[in-house]
């Protein structure tokens, strides 16, 4: 497919130690502006997939092509990808503004432009005026927003989200999921969104990929997935009986 923005081409990740989940010959394409949800139970290789795309995990075989460039061997910091962890991983020694501007600083953006962009992004996630706040003083939802702001501030080509709502309670999660959906639409972001939560995937994703023990078992729109689950495991993940 020539129109693919991100192309995962026969990617495998194998480990000598068993604590890291592996990937087995996974291939799929993502179009620009598309949101792909990745569903799977724990140990299915969801997180490894994101680590392989971002370069935190080197792949054993296969290629990752982003925007026409083979980035399989490109070091993580040169890939121009954004990744948001479940635990948010905010830098505890920096305040909110310095966290958000970190990527801009690495990109050598001049200081005045940087503070302008930080204000803009904080506004976008609903945290205008939070710049000088200490990370430790933030609530769970606020941390999640700061992490999102930090990830989108450098305008990454591709946004990877690893269970971004994982540590939040149900009410907050529902609100933030719809906010995130609006934001993705507004900024026309290309997103790979990992979750174990069916409703999140269905609400946000254009297509959903289901991983089972390192293998890609189905990749379809939510409607098709719901109507024709490929395996019993997929049906079980979707809550069918």
């Amino acid at each position: 497919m020539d129109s693919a923005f991100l192309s995962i081409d026969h990617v495998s990740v194998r480990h000598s130690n068993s604590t890291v989940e592996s990937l087995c010959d996974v291939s799929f394409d993502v179009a620009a502006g598309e949101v792909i949800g990745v569903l799977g139970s724990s140990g299915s290789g969801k997180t490894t997939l994101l680590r392989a795309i971002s370069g935190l995990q080197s792949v054993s075989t296969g290629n990752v092509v982003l925007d026409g460039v083979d980035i399989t061997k490109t070091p993580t910091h040169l890939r121009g990808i954004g990744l948001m962890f479940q635990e948010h991983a905010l830098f505890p020694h920096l305040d909110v503004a310095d966290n958000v501007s970190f990527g801009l600083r690495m990109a050598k953006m001049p200081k005045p432009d940087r503070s302008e962009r930080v204000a803009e992004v904080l506004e976008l996630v609903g945290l205008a005026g939070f710049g000088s706040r200490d990370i430790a003083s933030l609530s769970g939802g606020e941390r999640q927003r700061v992490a999102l702001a930090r990830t989108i501030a450098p305008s990454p080509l591709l946004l990877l989200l690893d269970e971004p709502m994982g540590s939040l309670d149900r009410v907050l999660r529902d609100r933030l999921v719809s906010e995130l959906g609006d934001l993705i639409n507004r900024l026309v972001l290309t997103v790979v969104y990992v979750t174990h939560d069916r409703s999140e995937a269905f609400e946000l994703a254009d297509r959903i990929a289901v991983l089972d023990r390192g293998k890609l078992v189905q990749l379809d729109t939510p409607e098709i997935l719901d109507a024709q689950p490929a395996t019993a495991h997929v049906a079980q993940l979707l809550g069918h009986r």
Partner: protein
Amino acid sequence: MVGALPLMDAAFESRGGTHRSSVWRLLAATPPLAFLGVFFVWPVFAILLRGLRPNGVWNLAAFSDVFSDPAMRRVLWFTLWESIASTVLCVIVALPAAAMFARLRFRGKRLLWSALLVPFVLPTVVVAVSMLGVIGGGGLTGVNLNGTVWAILIAHVFFNYAVVVRTVGATWSTIDPRLEESARILGAAPWRVFADITWPLIRSSVAAAASIVFLFSFTSFGIVLILGGLSHRTLEVEIYDQTAKFLHLDIAAVLAIVQLVVVVAILIWFGRSQRRRSVLVNQRSASETEQSAVTSSQRWLIRSNLLFMTVLFGIPLGLLVVRSFSTPSGWGFGFYQALTDSRGGSTSFVPPIDAVGNSLLFALMATVVALALGLCAAWAIVGNGSDVSNSRFSRWTDTALMIPLGTSAVTVGFGFLIVFDEPPLNLRSSLWLIPIAHAIVALPFVVRLLVPGLRSIDPRLREAASILGASPRRVWWTIDVPIVGRALAAAAGFAFAVSLGEFGATAFLARPDRPTMPIAIYRALGRPGDYNFGQAMAMSTILMVLTIVVITVIDRFRPAGVSEF
């Protein structure tokens, strides 16, 4: 230990009233604080008087004499820059190992982590002798660094490597690797990740470790005395020489005061930097943050660290043992047999092997004293864990008991010499003089090991036990003893090891006919010829083996995990 029993019992009977509890805590704090007052504060006070008020009149002339003497200024200057150089060098070579222990999983990791404690507790004299074997000219390498500042720096790195690796490594291992990964994804090159993320998060632990290394290097005695030759002398060595060789007690007192001022300043700075220690959000347990080495640079990190440790520790200590068996007439126990030889130059000469018995006896006495006092002190500091009203009292007691840690052993020895040599307390001929000095040196370590042990007892455990029908005594026996017992065993082992290797204070106090092992080694080094050097190596090997045995025993009682000390 037995003496502390009723105290512990009383603690639980008084749980009802805070007032009664604080009375008991005050009582518990009395013996260690009184001991500290008599055997530490008084001698130090005597040194101060000696220096500031030489002939019963307040007079600072001795200070201006010392500071205007070029030789003394050289000593001061050398002490200062040698400690800074040792600290910087030690931090630089130890950081890669801290990174390795914090981030990578490899075979034998836990064993190596424990084994690192061995060089830290090895007697200074043993380390000095083993260094002489490698870089003292002749020998395997033919390199002669004896008498150069390099010999001193290398020996200081040998000692303090574990301090930096373990202190920094323990902090580093709790930092979530996702912070570093996030920085990489946001476009930071590997060195930027270290500079902008990792370093700010480990900085306070590096500062803590560095100030300890500085303190140890600043007050280094045995190493400099043996390896420094005539041209490299620290304050400690100068204090010793002025006292023991030239009998200039006033000059020695002035030097001791100067040293005391620097040490106290460092300790205050250390306390401040520890209070600022940043609280890490999102801390991880060490087992979550480590990964197996996959990339070639990770494997290279492990290999180069292991190679460095082998060269730094393995070669000197291995060579020491090998050479102690390599007599002029071939391999054998010649040097060891010579230790039992009673022929000697003077009437006070005793067979060196006697020193083994002396050392073991003194170490036993020192351990009993340090443990009894340490237990009282630890209990006074912790209380029953429920009332916070006395936190100022416990912090104060805690700080007071830490002071000897920073003070040099030579100061203790020198102070004992001028105070307990005459009435009202003449201990000059008492067998207890050396064990008491050792107990003063060991007490801070003992308290440090016991306090976390006592604190780790969840009050709810005791409550649960008493609800289930256990009497206070039974609660103590079934809950406290098994938990504190481990800490107690570790503290006893540490006190024993400290006493076995203590050299600075003992050098002032040991009587000719009752040398300890480090003293016997130093005496053998002072006599010329391969025969005497061989004896020094044989004795050092015995002392090293004893120390390693004690440390191994401690380690079996230590709770698992990547703890600092």
